[in-house]
């Protein structure tokens, strides 16, 4: 017997919403371990979110509707993205809603409105955050697209499900192009999700923060939504990487067993991925804002190399 696609869809989205904080917590734990601190435990993010939901919203006086609308929009967009990327199965009704390029643009919506919200409350921090965020994204965009493009060459398609199918069903081949693309993707993903070395998620040190600077004035439910959406976004980037580069295990149809299998594998991959990211983060130091272009430039270079490799070697 096989589950109805719509049900799978809901299941996946629910899974994402539920697990995202846990994943964030896992990342924190690993990081603490590596830095020799005691961790607050994997459930800490849940507690934070609950606390924020209970609290009232304190709005800055000149905050406009944009500032209030943004959290909901961001949450909505993230959920949609969660419905598109195949996490546990490729048999998703929403999967065809957007191919990988459209998906990238969905993430741009998030950034666009976060930046607007940052400027809405007219502080120096907000403006600074928005300005830097937009620059980083502007430079990250081409690299991202190149990586995506290289991957899509293999399956001659930009639809994610198609990519997954082609890679996991087809016989396994070593693709140097994908290796390059993966490296590029990781670099870009770090930048896009605001991790070290581009941004530091857990600092309020004025001069280094980008993302935090934009959401500085948020509080209560709004902040909760923002944080939650942020965690989901982090998870989704991993999911994207998994779907694009190591899709093995993602179920093709709706058999419960396969789905379960897929879910388990997904969680394992996420845990592993988290560790890798933490290793990178702790290994590197936060770089000056004007070093970022070189960093993203190298990402672009890698992606281009990947593509050239595809045309030359494969």
């Amino acid at each position: 017997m096989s589950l109805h696609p719509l049900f799978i869809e809901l299941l996946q989205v629910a899974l994402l919403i539920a697990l995202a904080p846990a994943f964030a917590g896992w990342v924190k734990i690993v990081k603490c371990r590596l830095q020799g601190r005691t961790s607050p435990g994997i459930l800490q993010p849940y507690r934070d979110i609950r606390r924020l939901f209970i609290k009232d919203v304190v709005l800055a006086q000149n905050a406009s509707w944009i500032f209030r609308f943004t959290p909901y929009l961001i949450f909505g967009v993230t959920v949609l993205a969660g419905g598109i990327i195949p996490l546990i199965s490729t048999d998703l009704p929403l999967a065809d809603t957007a191919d990988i390029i459209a998906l990238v643009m969905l993430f741009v919506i998030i950034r666009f409105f976060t930046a607007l919200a940052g400027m809405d409350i007219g502080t120096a921090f907000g403006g600074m955050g928005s300005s830097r965020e937009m620059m980083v994204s502007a430079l990250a965009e081409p690299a991202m697209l190149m990586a995506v493009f290289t991957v899509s060459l293999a399956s001659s398609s930009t639809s994610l499900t198609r990519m997954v199918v082609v890679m996991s069903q087809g016989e396994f081949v070593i693709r140097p192009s994908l290796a390059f693309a993966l490296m590029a993707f990781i670099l870009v993903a770090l930048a896009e999700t605001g991790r070290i070395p581009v941004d530091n998620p857990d600092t309020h040190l004025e001069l280094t923060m980008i993302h935090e600077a934009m959401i500085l004035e948020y509080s209560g439910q709004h902040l909760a939504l923002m944080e939650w959406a942020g965690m989901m976004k982090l998870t989704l980037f991993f999911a994207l990487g998994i779907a694009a580069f190591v899709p093995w295990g993602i179920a093709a149809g709706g058999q419960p067993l396969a789905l379960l299998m897929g879910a388990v594998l997904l969680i394992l991959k996420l845990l592993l991925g988290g560790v890798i990211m933490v290793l990178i983060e702790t290994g590197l130091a936060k770089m000056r804002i004007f070093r970022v272009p070189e960093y993203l430039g190298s990402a672009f270079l890698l992606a281009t190399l990947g593509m050239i490799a595809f045309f030359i070697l494969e």
Partner: protein
Amino acid sequence: MTALDITGFSILLLLGGAIACPLLARRERLLIPVAFTLAALASGGVILSGFLTLSQGLNSAATIPLGLPGLPFNVRLDPLAGFFLVVIGLVSLFVSIYSIGYVRGYLGQRPVTPLVAFYLLFLAGMLLVIVADDAYLFLVAWELMAAASYFLVMFEDERAENRRAAFLYLLVAHVGALAILLAFGVMAGVATGYERFDGYTFDAMRGAHLSPGWSTAAFFLAFFGFAAKAGVIPLHVWLPEAHPAAPSNVSALMSGAMLKTSIYGMIRVGFDLLGEFPWWWGGIVLIFGLLSAVLGVLYALMQHDLKRLLAYHSVENIGIILIGLGLSMIFTSFHFPALAALALVAALYHTLNHALFKGLLFMGAGAVIQATGERNMEEMGGLIHPLPWTSALFLVGCVSISGLPPFNGFVSEWLTFQAFLLSPALPQPLLRLLFPLGAALLALTGALAATCFVKAFGVTFLGAQRGHRKVEHVREVGPAMRLGMTLAAVSCLALGVLPTYAVGLLDRIPRQLMGGHIGAVAGRFGWLWLTPASAERASYSGPLVFCVISAVVAVTYLLLHVRGASIRRAPLWDCGFEKITPRMQYTATAFAMPIRRVLGFLFDIREQVELISPVNHPVMADHIRYRLRIRDRIWGWLYAPQAKAAFWIARQVGRLQQGRIQIYLLYSFVTLIVLLAFLG
């Protein structure tokens, strides 16, 4: 009454109106609504006829017994023309409605009759360009359009910089027109060898078979001319001058509609009149497209005059359209009709979209300027509170032009990407390698555009008032202006949410031009999925994106407000910083600083910081003076030298005539002797 009749009738209506305008010069309060309603009606007719032509794939021609002997005015409507009629019609419809309110703002300041008259004339000119079917009528219409818009740009003629802008604009336009003229000359010459006049009809040119050399000459002459009008870098210099100078409704029309006529010209000449061409033509078009796109958006990012910024974005978007065109030409020359069709549809769709959102943005800018009397963004801020409508509609424009789903800008850019990603099909390995880089540049452009409009919207409408002017006296603009903008915004959203229908219509044009077409709509619920090439290749569903997002937003909102969450207003926290003032906000210049730092080498930047201290010691400085001047390098590289050269030659020529009559006699004497010696 056929589509062609409707169009002709609308054009006559506009011309008649233009001629009749002076009659109402005494009663301008009456003239404005009458004239612009007329314009709106005419636009409506044009949209109708264009739509009919496009949807039914009509191809009807007629001749008007005017013009040169043996060369009456030929007009024709085919799907291509129909589409551009729709584009121009839509923009002019919205802008005309908007103008009813906008132009009233000038009453009491200066006579608006010329503005109205030339506005109507301008519209008529653009429409004539589209329906013209022979070189002569085409050029007459083309220059009519240029002349009318020249007077419109010069409307506020007491400002010297406006006059300069208008002059520059007309000069570039005229030189371009001459180039186009020569292009037609080449084609007509081959058609009938200059013994008769009827070689100038487009039919004759279609029939003519040019040698490669001649056709190359023809195409690039035409391309130069049209590019000059479209503002393709490096021929763009007039554009950022002229658009700000013109009244905003006119800039909306110029940027939204007029630039498109040159795209039309390129397609008409390239695909229709010439037909077959080598791939490198497309390559060159593509390169210019990429150049304009990237540089355009970068220059835009450096502006702090709202309308200048928008003007540079027109350069960028024209670039994106050219990218589509170039791709389509390349695919055509390698005989991939389906891929060529995809690229062409992408270009055309972006043409339509740019017309709408750029029209919307310029209308919004006009509203802001009229409300605040200010063009410099550094003086604005916090306008979202007094201008709720305008700001919301402007935001729609920003989102659309930044290419964010589910709005229309995204769809066309996405189609262009798809066209890029289909390059592996090409036989040319080099092209296969280079195309993705082009795609990357396009991505960069998109991201920078988003950046630029975060800046534009954020600095203009968000935060707190920066300048010295008070926000209090700013009032929301009138209903007519709001209606015009709203209609534009709605159509932006509609074209983004339901692209399949539009694309299905556009698909007829490649069918007409190159016989190829894309399987735009596939499978069950076809209208839901936009699938260029094939369903598993790539797909996008505007409706779903829109519905899901809005659904989730609604649900979360409701969930969170079942128990009425109390919202408390409080002063800014700002990390506990106490005395925060509006002057501490990021300005437009500050916002663009990172990009300026990273990509500064592309500009001609003069930046100087001055520490002013009573006891001249930098540490004791009590305030800082900061000067920044950013120039378009291209002016210095291309235009200034030309002007210098011209005046140098003029000086040398002047020496011929130094006043003494004996010398003059000597000239004629020497001329005689020389001629006798060599020819006698």
